[in-house]
């Protein structure tokens, strides 16, 4: 394994872990509703930039840990993260060629899939909340995507 690979792996784990922690940091109510799914965005970024490092297993584990952290039915976020990671892996060759806005749009689609999985499993387990504002993180996540890419690129370039 190349040494650069190892630091990348470390960065990957650390960024997703940070995203998980930020998922439960207390925020004022209006910000809480639009809180972007930073852990998932981090996973997406790493799948697009270094698919050999970011596999499905860690994404799944991260989702499972998020379930435990937030006290949801075990497996909900795990399934959501897994589906998105899988789709991103399949689309990765195409998506990394997209211009940034186009890429943000496809990330929005993936986030939509993720929130749909959560919404659906919520409904199946009888916790359904059907308000429109549960879909807001999809939008904020997509808006945040260019920033995530910029931040990630600047960090990985330095570590190279």
């Amino acid at each position, binding site marked *: 394994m190349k040494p650069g690979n190892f630091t990348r792996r470390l960065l990957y784990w650390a960024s997703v872990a940070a995203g*998980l*922690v930020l998922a*439960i940091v*207390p*925020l004022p109510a209006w910000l809480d509703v639009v809180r972007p799914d930073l852990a998932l965005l981090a996973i997406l970024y790493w799948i697009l930039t270094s698919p050999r490092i970011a596999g499905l297993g860690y994404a799944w584990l991260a989702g499972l840990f998020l379930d435990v952290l*937030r006290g949801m039915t075990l*497996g909900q976020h795990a399934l959501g993260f897994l589906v998105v990671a899988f789709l991103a892996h399949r689309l990765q060759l195409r998506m990394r060629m997209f211009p940034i806005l186009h890429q943000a749009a496809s990330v929005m689609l993936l986030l939509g899939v993720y929130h749909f999985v959560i919404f659906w499993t919520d409904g199946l387990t009888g916790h359904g909340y059907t308000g429109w504002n549960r879909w807001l993180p999809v939008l904020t996540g997509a808006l945040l995507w260019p920033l995530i890419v910029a931040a990630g690129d600047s960090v990985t370039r330095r570590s190279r």
Partner: protein
Amino acid sequence: MVELSHDTRPIIGRGPPLVATFVTLAAASIALMVADDRYAHLDRVRHWLSAGAYPVQVAVDTPFRAWNWLTDSFADRSRLRQENLELTARLRLANLQLQRFAALEDENRRLRDMRENSAGIAERVLVSSILNVDLDPFRHRIVVDKGSEDGVFKGQAVLDGEGIFGQVTRVHSHSAEVILISDAEHAIPVQSNRSGVRTIAVGTGDSSKLSLPFVTVESDIQPGDLLISTGIGGVFPRGYPVAEVTRVERTPAATFALVDARPTANLDREREVLLVWFDPADPEVEESATTAAEPTAADGQAEAASGTPPVAAPAAAPPESGAGE
């Protein structure tokens, strides 16, 4: 026809194919969800998974706690003095009420002893702080810093200084998850302190509103009525304030009136809550005297109302009728 593989990992040592991993893990998560939601098999698994989650929650909580501590310890003198004065005044008032209350409680206990029933009075409380952690913006859940190590159990009632707060839904070794009475999945049996009408208060997902969907149009409920816990169901101790009725709308054509109430507990502002142990013996329908007695003209009416449905009560009381449905 040759197709390019989407899998760009190195051919040697790339591990199982993506699709296989995906299918395996997806099946695993679905199995987990079914096991967790439909059966209680995973309580143990969750228990030790949460051992990993607890340090994270504490780490998130610590800076906020430190900030609170800092602002508390460097509060300026005049504010502290002001607060002190207010608290002294409140304490004097409370003591005054307590004097009357002590006599009433004694009398109440004697009467209950005579009938061999001292159920529903809180026996032991444990103060615990709320961790500064956001779980889900659409569910009213909180995490408190006491767990099974401290004897906390599932279904335990949680109160704050002003009234009923919620109940414990999950217990970990050092923390517990509490569902608030305002969560849309929560329901609590209540009784009007004035008229004795019993009904159920359901959470709405709004921390300043409960809804009373099963009040018939003819029921004697008015805005301003204090709703107290009945103790039916054995989850909550009897006679603690739950909410105050804010709105009653009666349409003669409908069976049920539209009734809203505002929780008395500070659901969105509290930092510390009380976990309560009490003796949940047979709930009995009667006027509770544990809340501040209000000698009003409605007394006679209350007796009449509370005397009516004594038999049906135990049947309507499965051990967890207040729990999330």
